[in-house]
């Protein structure tokens, strides 16, 4: 199945034109594998639920800052006052509206999580792809030194860096991204090695297609869905880690609203006005669970497609 994609690519190259008529007819416009995987994943109820949840939370976090009223940093009542007609979810430890802070405090975690996962998976995938091609001394060295990062539990790595530089958002994003690199590199390398052994890659290599074009044009399209699964997993972890670090007080600094730090701030008033804690806890939980459901759906459909193509020959 994926084999035919590569065959067609070779047939498009001028050197192989003479052979093209002899090849079995292939359907012209077959959608890329990622689209097939996405369509299949969307047939699963779990993926649909996950997508619904994520759309809700992302919408809440993105639109929230514009509709938060009263302003999230202004005093709206007595500290820890309970839910009322004015403050629907009551007020927090300093008397600010919980709902406003909830609306305005999500986008930073979301954005930082996405950036950390994008950088980590991007760099990791590029390194893994390179390492799958020629595994020289230099690549071995790069991979081994990255493995040192895997000797740290992710939270410890983040805290270690924070202890040196201080609580900075960019530092946390960087630490989380850095921790993603070796794991992604390993996964992508093993998947790419498998694709590399297939005929169409061997053929492309034999007719002298430049290495970077083989990687970008032949291997990468065939591992996109696995990279997507990796991205989903790591996005869940990124958001969890960044929320954890801001819960510890090393993320976005107060008085700016932030879901993670909100939980810590309002923990003392849990029995007076629980919404200051329950609100952000639910939002973080929904976000991570929703992403994980989508990732699981994609993973299942990738496995299904691999099985089918194995069965087909």
């Amino acid at each position, binding site marked *: 199945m994926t084999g035919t994609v590569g065959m067609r690519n070779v047939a498009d190259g001028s050197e192989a034109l003479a052979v093209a008529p002899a090849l079995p007819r292939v359907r012209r416009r077959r959608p890329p594998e990622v689209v097939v995987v996405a369509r299949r994943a969307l047939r699963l109820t*779990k993926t649909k639920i996950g997508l619904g949840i994520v759309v809700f939370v992302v919408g809440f976090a993105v639109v929230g800052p514009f509709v938060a009223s009263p302003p999230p940093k202004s005093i709206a009542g007595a500290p820890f006052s309970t839910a009322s007609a004015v403050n629907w979810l009551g007020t927090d430890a300093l008397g600010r509206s919980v709902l406003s802070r909830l609306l305005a405090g999500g986008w930073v975690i979301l954005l930082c999580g996405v950036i950390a996962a994008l950088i980590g998976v991007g760099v990791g995938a590029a390194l893994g792809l390179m390492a799958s091609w020629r595994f020289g001394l230099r690549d071995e060295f790069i991979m081994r030194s990255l*493995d*040192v990062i895997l*000797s*740290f*539990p*992710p*939270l*410890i790595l983040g*805290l*270690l*860096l*924070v*202890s*040196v530089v*201080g609580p900075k958002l960019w530092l946390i994003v960087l630490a989380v991204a850095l921790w993603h690199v070796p794991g992604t590199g390993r996964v992508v390398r093993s998947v790419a090695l498998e694709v590399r052994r297939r005929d169409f890659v061997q053929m492309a290599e034999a007719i002298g297609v430049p290495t970077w074009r083989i990687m970008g044009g032949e291997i990468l399209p065939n591992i996109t869905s696995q990279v997507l699964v990796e991205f989903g997993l790591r996005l*869940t972890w990124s958001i*969890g*880690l960044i*929320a*954890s670090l801001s*819960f*510890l*007080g*090393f993320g976005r600094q107060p008085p700016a609203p932030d879901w993670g730090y909100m*939980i810590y701030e309002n*923990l003392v008033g*849990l*029995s007076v006005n*629980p919404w200051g*804690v*329950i609100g952000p*806890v639910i939002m*973080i*939980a929904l976000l*991570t*669970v929703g*992403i*994980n*459901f989508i990732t*699981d759906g994609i993973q299942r459909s990738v496995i299904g497609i691999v099985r089918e193509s194995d069965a087909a020959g």
Partner: protein
Amino acid sequence: MRERWLHLSPLAWFVVRRLLLGLVTLVVVSMVIFAATELLPGNAAQAILGLTTTPARLHAMELQLHLNQPFYTQYWDWFSGVLSGHLGHSLVDGRPVSSLLSNRIVNSLTLVVLAGAIGTAISIFVGLYSALHRGRWLDEVLGVVTLTLAALPEFVIAIGLVILFATVVFQVLPPVSIVPPGQTALASPRLLILPVVTLILATIPYTIRMLRASAIEVLESDYVAMARLKGVSSRRIVVRHVVPNALPSTVQVIALVLSWLAGGVVLVEYVFNYPGIGQAFVDAVSNRDAPVVQALALILAGFYVVMNLCADLAAVLLSARTRTSLQ
């Protein structure tokens, strides 16, 4: 050739190599920790004296702390100290780091061992059950539950439990685990319940999934099909085939759970105000107390590395397939 030199089987060579690699990793980890916390010049001296000090005093303090010496001398002083049990003094209160930590290590180990033991037992039971009843509704439900739990950060689980059992919904358990100074947490077991349950819930989704997958692999193998065709009872199949063949992954899972707990205790102890090394680590990071940060990062990462090493070795040594492929 190597075999002739030292009469070791390939398997023994593998173990020796893996152990050496683990040792090298530990040394490199200690270097990274030390470099990360010490590379900024004058950091420690500045931290002790504050911002309003004179350059002369700063210089004197740097001399006292050996900050003027080259990096490798400083590193070696620290590392040889660590090896002989001298972890330095806290920058905040001047107490030796080792005295700060002794009770806390016991407390954290209590959490880790309890959560590891109970979590492993639950994972084995639920994982096997799921594998034997795969595709049924309870297996499906367990799949959704583990998927959900796997997504949740530890502190969200911890606070969810506090909301449910200690404050808002029911008030049956203490919401914080404050241990009187001088005592260890074992003296008041009720304080341990919520932290241990949190750690269990945070780690079992992965282990249940791993065990379920490895048990299913065995159940769908040819030799189990053969046994079924011969008329072997399904109980006997589980006892004779599934359990022994799932053993390597079980031991691997135990080691992995323990290694994950090294990261998990930090947040859980912080949420519950539990006096372990994780809480001390967060405090030290807040205070930028370099000697304590170094010691604790080394302990936590070292534990993590050692447990991962155990997991790797267990996976190879206990599984017949990889063992024979190395012989």
